[in-house]
């Protein structure tokens, strides 16, 4: 594939810019249309959240793949510890539109945060990245209880220069915790200087130096993201230790070329294999948008 300056170096892809995939590279057991619909739902959610009056709302458009892939691969007994801007995880994990809208509008957990003890989505933390430490403790408890559960923790690269992040890597490696850290690297973050999060070649590189299994994948390629997170989860479930999956994403607000959009890239793949039609797209979008509208209208009426 001809790379453009927008494409990150050293980040694995299996799906090229035109949606063509290497033979045998599609993760086993993955229904691509279901995955695509979940990505579309996440995109619609981002658009709707931008209009929901969330204070300091920061869009996650372009970053859906790690959120959706994590939620799809987390099993019922697994825990997800989201960071900021990870609302899509709750939607894909099975939270109702009504509950999601109610939490977003009510703002109980803080602006734009949703959580659910029954869905095993943890509440957020005020201290930066402290949810990583709670996630490590959770994973430690799962290991001691031998219940087969694992914990996913979502974080952005800006938090990877903190003491909390390094202590989490240290304890995860030392105690062999069933912890999967999914780190979204924006490289050129819109809300922070370019220096934020930069320490060495990459976050994955630092994890490897700490003895933690890692993969660095291109966030524009939903199949690579799904595959890497799946491998990491399998390792944790087999009690083969913690891992870090770095997903290099391009924020759509930078107006990148279309192939940097993970939803578009997977759409191109489905199109090349005859699984996508404009009608399918319209119906998928309309369904989600309708539900979102009704849920947010009800939530806002409930608060009024």
């Amino acid at each position, binding site marked *: 594939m001809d790379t453009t300056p927008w494409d990150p170096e050293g980040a694995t892809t299996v799906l090229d810019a035109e949606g063509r995939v290497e033979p045998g590279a599609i993760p086993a057991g993955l229904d691509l249309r279901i995955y695509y619909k979940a990505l579309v739902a996440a995109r619609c959610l981002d658009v709707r959240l931008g209009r929901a009056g969330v204070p300091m709302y920061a869009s996650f458009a372009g970053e859906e793949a790690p959120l959706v892939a994590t939620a799809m691969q987390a099993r019922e007994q697994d825990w997800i510890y989201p960071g900021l801007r990870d609302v899509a995880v709750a939607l894909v994990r099975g939270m109702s539109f009504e509950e999601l809208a109610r939490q977003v509008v009510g703002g109980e957990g803080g602006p734009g945060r949703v*959580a659910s003890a*029954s869905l095993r989505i943890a509440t957020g933390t005020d201290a930066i990245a402290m949810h990583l430490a709670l996630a*490590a*403790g959770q994973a*430690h408890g799962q290991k*001691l209880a031998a219940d087969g559960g694992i914990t996913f923790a979502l974080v952005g690269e800006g938090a990877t220069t903190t003491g909390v992040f390094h202590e989490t890597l240290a*304890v995860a490696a030392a105690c062999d915790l069933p912890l999967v850290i999914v780190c979204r690297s924006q490289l050129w973050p819109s809300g922070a200087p370019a220096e934020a999060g930069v320490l060495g070649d990459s976050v994955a590189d630092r994890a490897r130096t700490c003895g933690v299994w890692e993969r660095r994948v291109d966030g524009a390629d939903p199949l690579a993201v799904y595959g890497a997170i799946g491998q990491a989860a399998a390792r944790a479930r087999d009690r083969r230790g913690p891992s870090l999956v770095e997903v290099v994403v391009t924020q759509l607000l930078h107006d990148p070329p279309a192939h940097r959009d993970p939803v578009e890239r997977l759409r191109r793949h489905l199109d090349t294999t005859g699984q996508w039609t404009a009608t399918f797209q319209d119906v998928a979008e309309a369904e989600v948008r309708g539900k979102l509208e009704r849920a947010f209208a009800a939530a806002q009426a409930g608060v009024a």
Partner: protein
Amino acid sequence: MNVIDVMAATLAELLREDARRVLLGEDVRTGGMLGLSRRCIDDPELAARALALPLLPATLAAHAGGLAAAGMRPIVLLPGVAPLLEGLAGLREVGALAAKNAGERTAPVLFVAPCGPGFGTAGDAVDAPETALVHTPGLRVIVLGRAHEAAALLTAAANFEAGEEPTVLLVPRMLLATALDDEPVAELGRLPGEPVRVRAGRAMTVFAWGECVELALAACAAAHGGEGVDAAVWDTGGLAPLSIDTLVEAARDTGRVVIVHAGPRSFGVGAELAAVIADRAVLWLDGPILRVCGEAGPLGPRQELRALPSEADLVAALQTLAIP
């Protein structure tokens, strides 16, 4: 036997009783920095539950909170209060966990930390560390007042008898080294943190906690050249939450109040207690509420005992209050 021996034996018992209990803290696999885990590591079945972790100054409290949220019952053995201050951000998250989850998740973590002067180390030992801890929402803070209650208080705290909040049990260093002459009490006979009157009296009320409970008893006996004063002495026990109703009632009983605690007077728990008593009992008071405390730091190791109020200062305060 001293208090450390008794607490070490109690910890082993606690681990045997509940398989969810695990020990965290520096060197717990080799006895812990105070030797509190040494009875546990003697027993091969318990030793596996003394968890070896790297140094986690910023995240130890949060890690323990995660373990507790996952269903374990971690007991964190600390060498002092400084680690809690280093990890205060994480401790605050643990304190907030139950409220954020509307009670669906709790974090029953027990932190055991020595406090106060007595080992010649100064540093955080001369501060009143509870002042930072009581401001942590959702955290229970209790302090051992009398050596012979060490085992019973540790047991009651580890059983979370007063509630499943994360709990800090402060153990004054002056008490840790105490040799136990009396048999340690088997049962606390009250909820951990509940105040208890340790001396009856009708003319004045002394509220003390930690190492100052024995100091208060001694001062009450030594006042007026050994004649003593007619003072009630209370071991306050729980600093967060304060048992306000009980303490206000005890203040109203006599109308003359002295509060005595280690560490500086300013902005301490004693200040809060004085304000609460003034709020609720001013019409019962015969005069201002006296606070007898230690010197503010920083104090070097040679001066660390100045962080404790002196018996002479307390006797003077009691004698002042005894004037009709």
